């Protein structure tokens, strides 16, 4: 029988572990994609088991925590948020997995200029910094950091919106490469989804720390000093 504080700390550490796992998956899949490294992609596929295993473990631990300790107030918000965060992180892991499997399926690398037109590096960079922000926010209990991701998500959304026009243009130029372009389209969508998932996690962290529910509301960026 664990006491509540110790049990909570275990949950906390498990959550952090999940963050680290998924972050590594995402970085590897990004590198694999940008350098078309199928070996790295294989690693991502291989590690998916670990991600799933961690997901199940965390789910079980949260259930146990609720059953044994009957948490209220801060403890309750923490475990409810953690379950959702876990769910969202697992989905991010799934997307990393999906991107990596595309790399293995589609053999030929994409032309660099197309990648540049679509602003892939920028998109990935933004997504990664969001992931780092959110991990720090979770680790240090900092809602300011959590709020940063809402603004950064806009970058991802913009790139995603533009991608349709760019890709349609490219396809018309060279219809034979439609498979590739469709692949690119999917990958962009996936990264945009990752951004959404990260903002979800941001909402959950703010709910846990401040008991404020941001779901379904128009989001502001980090609050200005003096407000």
């Amino acid at each position, binding site marked *: 029988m664990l006491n*509540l*504080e110790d049990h909570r700390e275990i949950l906390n550490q498990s959550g952090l572990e999940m963050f680290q796992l998924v972050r590594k998956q995402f970085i590897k899949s990004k590198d694999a994609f940008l350098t078309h490294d199928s070996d790295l992609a294989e690693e991502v596929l291989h590690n998916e088991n670990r991600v799933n295993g961690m997901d199940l473990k965390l789910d079980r631990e949260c259930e146990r925590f609720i059953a044994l*300790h*009957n*948490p*209220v*107030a*801060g*403890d*309750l*918000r923490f475990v409810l948020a953690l379950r959702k965060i876990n769910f969202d992180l697992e989905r991010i892991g799934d997307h990393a997995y999906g991107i990596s499997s595309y790399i293995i399926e589609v053999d030929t690398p994409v032309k660099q200029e197309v990648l540049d037109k679509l602003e892939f590096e920028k998109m990935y960079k933004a997504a990664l910094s969001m992931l780092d922000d959110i991990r720090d926010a979770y680790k240090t209990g900092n809602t300011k950091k959590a709020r940063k991701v809402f603004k950064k998500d806009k970058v991802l959304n913009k790139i995603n919106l533009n991608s349709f026009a760019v890709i349609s243009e490219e396809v018309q130029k060279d219809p034979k490469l439609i498979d590739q372009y469709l692949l690119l389209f999917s990958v962009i969508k996936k990264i945009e989804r990752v951004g959404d998932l990260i903002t979800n996690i941001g909402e959950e962290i703010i709910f846990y720390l401040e*008991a404020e529910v941001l779901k379904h509301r128009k989001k502001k960026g980090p609050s200005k000093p003096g407000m």
Partner: protein
Amino acid sequence: MSEENSESIIESSIKRKYKLQAKDVKVWYGDFMAINNVSMDIKANKVTAFIGPSGCGKSTFLRLFNRMNDYVDDFKMGGDINIDGKDIYDKNINVELLRKQVGMVFQKPNPFPKSIFENVAYGLKIQGLKDKAFLEERVESSLKQVALWDEVKNDLNKSALALSGGQQQRLCIARTLAVEPSIILMDEPTSALDPISTAKIEELIYKLKDKYTIVIVTHNMQQASRISDNTAFFYLGELIEYDKTNKIFTNPEKKQTENYITGRFG
């Protein structure tokens, strides 16, 4: 003169809104200050729970409302306690009449060593009500309210002490209901009972809310969160926080409250 009148109109409408009121209440037992400046307004037809660690004064505060502290040596009290807007510590108040309006259920079931019928009818008998038919009807309706009637109707003359703990406590509640109070005070009513009896009584409290105003002192946090509308957290004789139960258990204002309900102290 007119300003005084308008003041009292506002005050009196506030008083009518709240069934029980405490204003700047202090209690001493000799030199020991048991309650330190507590103010609280309790609405009618709600269940209010008092929680807090042992010795924090919640039972003492509860007993102010039916003046049971009067029997304790060295009891001294300051501030106002109003019920339906009237100060119950006023010199002209008839304490026996007060206790008919404000009933009390204790921690350990304490039926009288008499028959079941005698127990429930006691409150009526001491008022001088003797009519047999009337007593029988009241006893039956009280026992029905606490869901005990079917279990005991065949032998109302059986000794109350022959009932199980949970039944005895329901009998004590029936006894209180028989005199038709408007307020019921409960001092840890289920702490001496098994979980099934506890559940039955919690169900009963929930039903009684419609007709009565209930204040319950409890050590059991889950009980407070299950059955109360509002919760008051006491610590060392002070009222730390008093709010809707939902708020207290999801996002309390004070860190002390959070520490207590999450079990980090007390």
